């Protein structure tokens, strides 16, 4: 359950003030599938960053699963990101030095999960995402679709309640894009809230609820 109330976010670009988000209020119930759409510069990414607690609003209230996020300290915010939120990026953001296996295992390692459990959970994820025979490949040895599947596996290995996807198919060909979208939708069916930023209308139509953003406001 996500509740945003009167969120404001402004940036200083040169001597001009850009109103990235103005008076954004939004309620997302658990298990929803939402597409945030709109032209570039409309505030989609800013909204996603605030939802992911990567950025702080200048004013307004953000509540995630009943927790008032804005008032928390940096460490608690990090903990919420670790346990409740999974990020999927347009450019995958895999660590180039690590194998697919280690990339997926990264969040588990960072939260101190024991080795045996790590092996088991990552193995299961690899199988689920059809990457079993790619476990020991590094990102540069994988195709775009495979990379994004590794990234999704990493985002969901901690079993978050929310997946935030920023143009997850934007850097993929049509076929891989549909494949990735189907994987995300399957995760949504399993109960994870899926919030996806996209400017591809076809992708947007797949979502059960569409939000259109123009000039930092929800239309």
């Amino acid at each position, binding site marked *: 359950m996500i509740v945003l109330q009167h969120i404001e976010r402004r940036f200083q670009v040169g001597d001009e003030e850009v109103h990235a988000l103005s008076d954004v209020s939004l309620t997302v119930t658990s298990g929803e599938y939402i597409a945030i759409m709109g032209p570039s510069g409309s505030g989609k990414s800013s909204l996603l*960053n605030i939802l*992911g607690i*990567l*950025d702080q609003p200048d004013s307004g209230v953000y509540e995630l699963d009943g927790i008032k996020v804005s008032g928390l300290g*940096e*460490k608690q915010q*990090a*903990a*919420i*990101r*670790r*346990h409740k*939120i999974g*990020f999927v*990026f347009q*450019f995958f*953001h895999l*660590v180039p030095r690590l194998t697919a296996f280690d990339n997926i295992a*990264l*969040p588990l390692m*960072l*939260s101190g999960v024991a080795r045996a459990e790590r092996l088991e959970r990552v193995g299961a994820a690899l199988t689920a995402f059809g990457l079993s025979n790619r476990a020991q490949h590094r990102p540069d040895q994988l195709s775009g679709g495979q990379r994004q599947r590794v990234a999704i596996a*990493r985002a969901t290995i901690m079993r978050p309640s929310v997946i935030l996807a920023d143009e997850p198919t934007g850097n993929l060909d049509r076929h891989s894009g549909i494949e990735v979208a189907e994987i995300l939708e399957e995760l949504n069916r399993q109960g994870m809230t899926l919030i996806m930023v996209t400017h591809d209308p076809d992708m947007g139509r797949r979502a059960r609820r569409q939000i259109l953003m123009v000039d930092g406001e929800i239309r």
Partner: protein
Amino acid sequence: MLLTSLGEGLHHFVLSEFTQFGTNLIIINPGKVTTHGVSGALISNVRPLTLEDSQRLKQIPHIIETVAVIQGNAAIESGGHQRRSTVYGVSASAAQVWNFAVATGRFLPDDPPRSARSFVVLGSKVRQELFGNSQALGMRVRIGSELFRVIGSMESKGQLLGFDLDDAVYIPTSKAMALFNRESLMEIDLLHTASSNSTIVAEQVKKVLQERHGKEDFSVTTQEKMLEVLGDILGTLTIAVGALGGISLVVGGVGILTIMSIAVNERTGEIGLLRALGVAKGQILTLFLGEAVMLAAIGGLIGLVVGLGGSWLFSVLVPALPAHTTWAYVASAELLAVCVGLLAGVLPARRAATMHPVEALRAE
């Protein structure tokens, strides 16, 4: 590391070299050395030190022995062999005062100073060069124009700061005065009892000599003072060596700073990712600080290995000058390296930690 090792080794080495002559020495040289650096010897009316001065000083309480010293270079000849060596004109007591050990035969006999017999005691190197493995005792050698009978040879003493103490012969002072055509002594060495205070004895020596000479035209140096001066010099040396080490530490620190800054720049995207995966600022800081410290520690270890290897090599190549490795130095050197790493890592690590995650993610 190697530097401090060497410095320490040098310190010990020089101290032991100087104290091998005994610690209760007082040395008298002609001419007054003033703080202005003008030696009294420059003024012609200096009354030189004589054999009689040496005899008189021996009567001062607490003085055990005196050695009247003349030093010069002369050719020493025996059979077909010839060698130029240092010739010391000394009293019979020199072996005792200087802690010299006789290998074979005996040292010079205690003849009356003015009418000593023509005996010579050979340093080990001279003996080896002139006689090889054959018997030297009783043989005659020519020094300058006079013949001397060999009555003993010394044990090897090694080198003192480049002076080969074995490449020398010892003859009675009066003979050396004749040989080098000198009227006066170059030095009088006094051995005083271990229980007596060297400063008090030195004062008495001054008084006696002043009475004889009418004024203070000589300088008295106690061994303590020599060691003190030496200690000062070596202390300065150690500081200089330390400063060198300090500079290299700063350079190393700057190197680590640069490497870490580059690492933070290159891995901006990864830092953003880690933040998104729920790593707190503090953890990022620790991560990069740890990396800097690791780098410095490894560098320090390599330095230590090279340093220890160097001092080992040094001790093999120049056994006479053993580099002295203090383990406390080794430990503190490593600790210092780690501290430098920590210091150098603070800035880049702070930059990594305070980076805005959104901007960091956008960097890739």
